[in-house]
């Protein structure tokens, strides 16, 4: 490597556009993603790994749906509700989906206000997001209770293939756990935003790192991911 010596304070270089920029970023020193902080790089890589987990769950679901001998129950019927005497298929799931997608909207707004250092609006929007999330989990709990009372168990159900219940509890349970963790995170971060920890750069209790508004965005990325996964679960499990 015969390049000339690197000086101690090299000139700041403008970022190049397009493929050229990609190549120059990846062949540069220090960082490969010039605009991503450590925290953001970490959450993206975590989400990539988590994508593989959900993909494995969904692919396994499709496989057992093919391997099982008994007929697969019709989700539209199983998840239908009688509301004021009207029989509406999938209504609860539709509402849940709507709630979760809306929460992505409020989350995006919270991130925006966070970077503007608007403490109050950020905290409130995060709490609204958390409330949407909690509503989602609550409706999921309702759905679980309803199916359990109708005799659905992980190992059997009244309508057909036993794998229906297994997959239902496993996948919605795993996704619901993600949402619950997200809600807890939102509450913790919202509290810190409210207290102004990120304005004073208060150090984390465990990590002794300075607090930054960026953590709002990191939480947001996780939250959007959990929403996106739900769209796939909705399409592949409920609509199929």
């Amino acid at each position, binding site marked *: *490597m015969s390049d000339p010596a*690197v000086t101690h304070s*090299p000139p700041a270089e403008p970022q190049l556009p397009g493929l050229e920029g990609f190549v120059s970023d990846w062949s540069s020193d220090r*960082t490969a993603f*010039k605009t991503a902080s450590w925290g953001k790089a970490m959450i993206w890589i975590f989400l990539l*790994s988590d994508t593989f987990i959900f993909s494995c769950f969904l692919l396994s679901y499709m496989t057992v749906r093919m391997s099982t001998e008994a007929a697969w129950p019709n989700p539209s019927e199983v998840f239908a509700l009688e509301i004021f005497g009207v029989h509406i298929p999938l209504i609860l799931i539709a509402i849940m989906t709507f709630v979760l997608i809306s929460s992505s909207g409020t989350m995006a707004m919270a991130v925006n206000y966070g970077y503007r250092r608007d403490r109050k609006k950020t905290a409130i929007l995060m709490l609204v997001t958390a409330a949407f999330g909690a509503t989602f989990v609550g409706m999921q709990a309702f759905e679980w209770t309803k199916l359990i009372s109708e005799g659905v168990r992980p190992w059997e159900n009244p309508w057909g293939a036993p794998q229906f219940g297994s997959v239902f509890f496993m996948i919605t349970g795993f996704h619901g756990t993600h949402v619950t963790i997200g809600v807890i995170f939102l509450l913790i971060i919202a509290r810190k935003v409210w207290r102004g920890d990120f304005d004073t750069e208060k150090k984390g209790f465990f990590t002794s790192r300075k607090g930054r508004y960026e953590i709002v965005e990191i939480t947001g990325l996780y939250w959007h991911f959990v929403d996106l996964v739900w769209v796939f679960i909705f399409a592949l499990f409920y609509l199929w």
Partner: protein
Amino acid sequence: MVDATHGPDAHAAEFPDVELYHPRSWWTRYVFSQDAKVIAIQYASTALAIGMVALVLSWLMRMQLAFPGFLEFIDAAAYYQFITMHGMIMVIYLITALFLGGFGNYQIPLMLGARDMVFPYVNMLSYWTYLLAVLVLVASWFAPGGPTGAGWTLYPPQAILSNTPGQEAGIVLMLVSLILFVIGFTMGGLNYIVTVLQGRTRGMTLMRMPLTVWGIFVATVMAMLAFPALFVACVMMLFDKLLGTSFFMPAVAEMGVQLAHNGGSPILFQHLFWFFGHPEVYIVALPAFGIVSDLLATHARKNIFGYRMMVWAIVIIGALSFVVWAHHMYVSGMNPYFGFFFATTTLIIAVPTAIKVYNWVLTLWRGDIHLNPPMLFALAFIVTFVNGGLTGLFLGNVVVDVPLSDSMFVVAHFHMVMGVAQILVIFGAIYHWYPKITGRMLDNTLAHLHFWVTFVGAYLIFFPMHYLGLMGVPRRYFESGDISFQPPSAHELNVFITVMALTVGAAQLVFVFNLIWSIRHGKPAGGNPWRATTLEWQTPQTPPAHGNFGRELPVVYRWAYDYSVPGAPEDFIPQNQPGPTPPHHEGSE
């Protein structure tokens, strides 16, 4: 080479030195430490300790195969438990943990000129979760029924049926332990990846990273994508076992009784397991490739031959290893076109792998080879890996694999390619970096004794197994009894293998003794005993202090392989030495 003079950007300077966690007490300094070096030592010690258990298990198995009935406590059930725990511990809890958690933690920040991993707190949690996973695994010996005897592949349906040993609690603890391992690894893996991508020092471009870091980095990326399949398989099998679901369980009758399971797919488990399992082979191989490259260059005083080719070979091997998994399932039956596909991809991987071997040999060519312990182990690795790779070419072909499958030939193959080869690199790496970690050299005589007994012994153990396999001696058999196709010589060979296995095992005690004894009594090593170029040898203190590099981080001016540069005052130029490389240097690009 693209120039390395990119400006410092806002984010790299984001966490200045003061943000390092500074321990305030003995507990946070040595036990709940957030320093990657301490975490590395914790990972490595735990892995070596549990690895000793796996070693003892291999002795017991060998005793049973050579002298059936001599050790009375080994019945068929115990034998299967030993096999299972031996295989799983060796592959996951020893080699994976040691390469990534141990060497990864120690080398990545030091070699890249970083103060620490990017998220030290998460890094610490990673180790404690790993320890918990190990403890859960160990607990299965004390649980009713003992550890599981399902084989390290844990194939359903037998893994959870009642005639498999350890089906009361052992299998559950095994699955829980694996799930914990994946969670713990993920926390560490995020650190290794982000540190490599975003935490390098000034002047350290990706294409100036030592190959050790490249190997560990690509292996970690692979692990982050392969472990999810294991995680999901474990969760679903746990449900099959505890809740009576039928993900993997078809309709089964056991002892004439129809079980409640029905409609699941055992083949699904095999796909998930091997989607993890094959990349796992390379997750332990790529760090070894990287480390060996650095050992060879340093101890032959030569620049590594074809650095860029080596990097791309690592990346390509990593990518290809995700599309070959079903070569482990030829005997499970599959569409012939799939067999064709997977055999083809398997053989294609041989190309980048062979390139690496050629480059190692060319690195040695006309080098100033110092036959010290790290170099000996590195050479032994090349020989062993080539050996295992060649038998791999046999097994990659469907028609050859089908008769050899589940025979001792397979046992010989995978021990060569992913057992012995990797362990040899681990030893070489320990002899190489121990002086940096402790400040003292390991004893050279004991090291040579350890090397020769281990290397020759390992060949004497595993080479005859190829032959046994070709004769048709099956794998995973507790006792062969009188089988007409096995000549008496097969049994004599078994006795010989066992004696060798015990000898090699004893040699490991020499190694452990050397490790402990030299901490106090070894020759002081100084900062850079091997006169190596990479940054970990340029630290102001040895062992490196908290924060690694004193007040100022090093700045990197060159690649990691400036050895024997013509015209240079010494026969090596450290990566952080300014100034151009003297002219007429072949190694410069």
